[in-house]
């Protein structure tokens, strides 16, 4: 689990508490909304998560 926390910290700049909270959401719910914003930047984040071999996808915000 520390791997996932580390990646969230590196990619999004989250502190330990935020990153751990997202990791727990992923663990318990199977997913976590990690970031909301412009598509281009979101694509960059998804690429970085894939680079770290974590599954991630984009969803359009309604």
């Amino acid at each position, binding site marked *: 689990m*520390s*791997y996932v926390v*580390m990646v969230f910290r*590196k990619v999004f700049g989250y502190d330990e508490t935020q990153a751990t909270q997202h990791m727990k959401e992923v663990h318990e719910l199977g997913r976590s909304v990690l970031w909301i914003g412009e598509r281009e930047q*979101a*694509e960059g984040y*998804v*690429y970085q998560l*894939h*680079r*770290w*071999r974590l*599954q991630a*996808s*984009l969803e359009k915000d309604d």
Partner: protein
Amino acid sequence: MIEFELQVSPSFLETLLPYLGKVLRETSGRFAGKRFAPPESGDEDLNVAWREGLIEDGRADRLAFSRLLGNPKLALGQVEISMDDVDDTLRGMTELRIHLREHGLNSVSDEDLENGRIRIESLPQNTRIAYLGYILLAEMQERLIHEVS
């Protein structure tokens, strides 16, 4: 340079390190395209760049991990990784763990794997070595993350 020692018997490593080297070679040239597909955009250039970028990055990650495996000190439980190699090595280990999970350990449930509630002696030989390799990689990752954080 990051240095730490694994609390693992040399005989254990004597079996597992060559096995991980074999798995590393098996993953070479493979790419889980579906798992890491680019977001739908209709932009074929983006799709190609995404896929090729991940393949190229994965190559660097496997190379970093192969440097660790090739260090004779590892057979004695001594892990040495240059700071420049830390991220690539961590990713290389993750790629191997994913491969082991999907191939050698596909008969083991996520819950059992996560809780460590597995009776090693009850596993078939192929699953047993995959499980031990998976655990060794997890231990090395945890220690490495601890050392750099």
